[in-house]
């Protein structure tokens, strides 16, 4: 298998001028072509900051201190802002935790998807619009002709997550980073979104870095899993190994947390 993304010893700190807060201590992970990799850990363990470091869409105060990030053998930490901008959305796309918050409230969802299309694919507006309609159908939005003109607050959470998905898949990225995409949704919608994600992956052949604190989701979809704890990637193994033979005590804790619930 071809290596797509490699993060080596990443260290990220928040710089509050008078003091520093370390968000990521030492994170290393790899994602191969056409693979689903899970990144699991409790809240505040640095999963999201690790993911945002990849294309450097970090909050202003967060600074990458050291480490290396390679994407298709290109060192992203040395890439210019210009070069990164052509990778964002086109090669590496994101979907986020709370879709409503991540959509512009004063812009129709159709226009927002169209923006992603225009940025990297078609300059021509009519072509772009046809393509957006196609995308809306692909993520199974009923009546795409009408939904195109809806504002985010007029759609449900699940619907908005489908919009985000359409937006991120607009340019057929090779890596999709999903940052807790189902945490804000209820379980039935969660299942539907996960099914959709797997279906689209089968069709377009991209890799997914799936970030979550919910190991049961990873049990369902992931090929390999990394466990993050206090800013460090503490364990990595194939899905089966992690569940049958967890080595790090924190992994044990995460698994127990879910097994207990399912036993009840």
């Amino acid at each position, binding site marked *: 298998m071809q290596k797509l993304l490699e993060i080596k010893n990443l260290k990220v700190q928040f710089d509050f001028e008078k003091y520093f807060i370390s968000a990521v201590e030492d994170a290393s992970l790899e994602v191969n072509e056409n693979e689903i990799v899970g990144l699991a850990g409790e809240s505040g363990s640095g999963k999201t900051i690790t993911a945002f470091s990849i294309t450097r869409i970090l909050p202003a105060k967060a600074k990458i201190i050291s480490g290396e990030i390679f994407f298709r053998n290109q060192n992203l930490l040395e890439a210019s802002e210009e070069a990164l901008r052509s990778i964002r959305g086109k090669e590496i796309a994101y979907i986020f935790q709370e879709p409503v918050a*991540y959509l512009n409230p004063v812009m129709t969802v159709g226009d927002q998807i169209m*923006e992603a299309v225009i*940025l990297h694919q078609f300059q021509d507006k009519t072509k772009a619009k046809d393509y957006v309609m196609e995308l809306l159908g692909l993520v199974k939005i009923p009546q795409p002709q009408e939904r195109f003109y809806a504002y985010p607050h007029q759609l449900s959470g699940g619907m908005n997550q489908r919009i985000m998905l359409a937006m991120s898949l607009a340019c057929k990225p090779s890596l999709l980073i999903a940052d807790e995409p189902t945490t804000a949704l209820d379980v039935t919608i969660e299942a539907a979104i996960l099914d959709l994600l797997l279906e689209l992956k089968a069709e377009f052949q991209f890799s997914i870095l799936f970030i979550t604190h919910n190991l049961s989701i990873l049990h369902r979809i992931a090929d390999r899993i990394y466990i993050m704890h206090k800013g460090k990637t503490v364990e990595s193994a194939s899905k089966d190994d992690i569940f049958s033979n967890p080595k790090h005590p924190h992994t044990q804790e995460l698994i127990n947390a879910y097994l207990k619930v399912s036993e009840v």
Partner: protein
Amino acid sequence: MNKLLITGIIIISVLSIIAVFAPFVAPHDPNNIDEASLLTPPSGKYLLGTDQLGRDILSRMIYGARISLSVGLIAIGIATILGLILGSLSGYYGGILDNIIMRFTDIMLCFPTFFLILAVVAVWESSIFNIMVIIGLTSWMGVARLIRAEILSLKEREFIQAEKAIGASNLRIITRHLIPNAIGPILVNVTLGIAGAILLESGLSFLGLGIQPPTPSWGNILIEAKSTLGVAWWLTVFPGLAILITILGFNLISEGIRREL
């Protein structure tokens, strides 16, 4: 839509239509001198009377509306564009740029605007164009501060991060996402600003430093009326009322928008 907003919009629309179609609406030529009827009170022929040169006041006010409204709109247009550019640069990029722009804004706010304009007009010719530009260049500070404050909070919102994540440039983020989200308070400020600019222009014209006769503006009709105040009340009352109604209209709109937000 609330009543305030609707009333304001009706007032301003009517005034704008009158101003745009002035040649068709005005009953007389505003500069036509009728020696036979100097200082005649309102009558059938001259609805709002004539001035000391026998010119029809109603026609002069109708043409004056063109000047007053266009000064208001263009001056505040200049101010808003300047304010949007400086404020959004300042709010979005922060750091040294923010410091420089905001200190410059503070400096501009220290000047008593009216006297600054007086000084400038004293040096340069006081054409309509100059008046618009000067008012525009001295009223952008409020917009700049407003938009900066809005962008400071908006830029931390998640959807801006999502925009970065799809590869949008800073310019695109500012113009397509940040400014449209901040437009509400800006609109309020714009309508208030137009009212302010019209008052400022009237004030300048009243002092003889604004629009020069024979071009009619509400301000210079008032100053010409000053000398005959004792005998011809209609020369001051009607232009004064016109200014009052216009300002009221714009203030109603701004209050109406504020309540809609």
